[in-house]
């Protein structure tokens, strides 16, 4: 990509609705230009800026895995003017995309390791990317444990896939909701408590955490308490990123710009950065 300020054109191929309130929708996008497609190389954890002409741009983590060919997937929560407009899109419509931006989860370092994935709410997007990526080279990794929490059962994203993952014997899936609800037979309670309860031994294990700020804030100390070293904990931070290329200053924390130095940081790195969580 020559000019990182100018978006490339994408076409909406498939729209999925994730929750009964229809505020969470998943979009599979394809490249309008083959040259853009061929140049687009990414890894789990990276993000893109999606844009609607006249409305603006917002950053979204890539939910598809580079091992899934032919589309890029994004899940969009309807909260503001851009996401509102994205929700009006139909199949075949076009949307602008800048990316891939930011760094990625340490996929190389996960080889030969146990992996603990901790996610919350609709921030599970890049964790889905990671999970698919790991499963597509399953033999390279040891045990995979997933802890995924949402406020209520409706707010899990990728429910169909979760059902499939649950059936697999090579992934330990733990779902939890904040408060008990009739008909819910899985865990109840906040993510940090569930992590404490079911997290695997820190021995030879990497923890990858992504979720709302409050979840990250209370989960990281639990992992430390369980014996995970700072180098073995990774998290993805969110800020109001705009330019995505380390200039506009919005996502500046300490001497870092989340959009180019992150969004993925190890706990060891976070300790040297102010105002992270």
């Amino acid at each position, binding site marked *: 990509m020559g*000019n990182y300020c100018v978006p490339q054109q994408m076409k909406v191929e498939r729209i999925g609705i994730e929750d009964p309130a229809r505020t969470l929708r998943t979009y599979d996008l394809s490249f309008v230009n083959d040259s853009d497609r061929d140049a687009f190389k990414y890894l789990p954890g990276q993000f893109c800026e999606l*844009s*609607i002409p006249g409305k603006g*741009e917002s950053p979204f983590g890539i939910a598809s895995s580079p091992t899934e060919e032919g589309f890029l997937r994004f899940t969009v929560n309807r909260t503001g003017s851009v996401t509102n407009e994205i929700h009006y899109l139909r199949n075949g419509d076009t949307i602008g995309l800048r990316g891939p931006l930011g760094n990625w989860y340490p996929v190389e370092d996960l080889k030969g390791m146990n992996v603990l994935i901790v996610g919350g709410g609709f921030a599970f997007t890049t964790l889905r990317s990671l999970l698919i990526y790991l499963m597509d080279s399953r033999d390279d990794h040891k045990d995979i444990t997933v802890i995924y929490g949402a406020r209520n059962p409706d707010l899990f994203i990728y429910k169909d896939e979760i059902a499939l993952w649950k059936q697999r014997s090579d992934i330990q899936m733990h779902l939890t909701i904040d408060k008990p609800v009739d008909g819910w037979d899985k865990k109840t309670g906040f993510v940090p408590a569930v992590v404490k309860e079911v997290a695997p031994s820190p021995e030879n294990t990497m923890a990858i955490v992504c979720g709302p700020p409050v979840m990250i804030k209370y989960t990281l100390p639990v992992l430390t308490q369980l014996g995970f070293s700072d180098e073995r904990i990774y998290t993805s931070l969110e800020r109001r990123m705009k330019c995505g290329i380390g*200039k506009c200053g919005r996502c500046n924390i300490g001497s870092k710009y989340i959009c180019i130095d992150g969004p993925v940081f190890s706990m060891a790195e976070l300790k040297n950065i102010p105002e992270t969580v």
Partner: protein
Amino acid sequence: MNMVRLDKKKFGDFILELSVEHAVYAPGNTGGKTDFIPVSSEDEINLKTLVTDLSPKGIFFPHSEVLYEYDTEGIRVPEKEAGKPIAVWGMRGCDSRSLLMLNKVFGSAIQMPDNKNFQDPYWKEKYDSSVIFGSACNMPQSTCFCNWFGDGPHSREGMDVFVVDAGDHYLMEPVSDKGSNILGKLTCLTDSLEGDAEAALKLASEAESTMVPPMDVNGLGELLNDLYDEPVWEDISAKCINCGACTFSCPTCHCYDIQDEGKGSSGKRIRIWDSCMFPIFTMEASGHNPRALSSQRVRQRVMHKYSYFLEKYGDFLCTGCGRCITVCPVNLDIREVLKTINVYNRQGITNG
């Protein structure tokens, strides 16, 4: 190439000659304020102005700049105008230095995570071809504190040609190859005379002697990092009203917003100056604001200038031009802030 002279009587010719191949910017008056404006003749230039009210950053990084235009046909980056390269007259050392800092952000190749290097094309097309006629500052103001950070009022940093106002004539000395080239081409210049160099040095030392001795800024970055969680920020920021007068008048503040302006199927995407003083700067769509308090935002501005930028790019993001001091509606003086921090360190941290 050596120092040359420009007789002030020939200043008009000089501007005309410079204008042949350059779009010339110089300090001028706009609605009672001074700013760097496009000029085509001597008459439009304000040669008396002190530090201009607005900084020259707008020449290269305008308040609103079109990134691209779109319509039903697609997206177009505005063609580089068949315009001439920019020449700026009359930039004091504090201002020319600021361009070096902005160039670190916009001009230098930033390595993207995918290993591609990215330079900002909008900045580069203007800045790289520009030629800066700097101006030795013979009369620092009471708000000036360039001697805290740089080479003082006769600094040449960021200039292509160093210009000294020596009474009835200007003395010019090339600082860069670009500067040598242009001085070689201009015909209205004459050789310097014996004693000119000494005269310039004398003016420099006179200018320096009028300035208040600087605060020692060695270790300021680390000091700020140590004070990050201290309550001193609440005192410092108490009177700040969180407007953007300081950041918008600052020659080095460069944070921006990106907005689409359009109607129906056509429009443009622009980038616009933004300010870390505004609460919405960091407000997220969810309503969560990591810097909801005034004290957090003031701290961010100070930390970014005197710690974060230093750590990332090896320089303070401040040239001591004093504009933020002059424009602040509540007289929150950045020099006082830094002094407070210095003193607080001694009293607050070491004792407590």
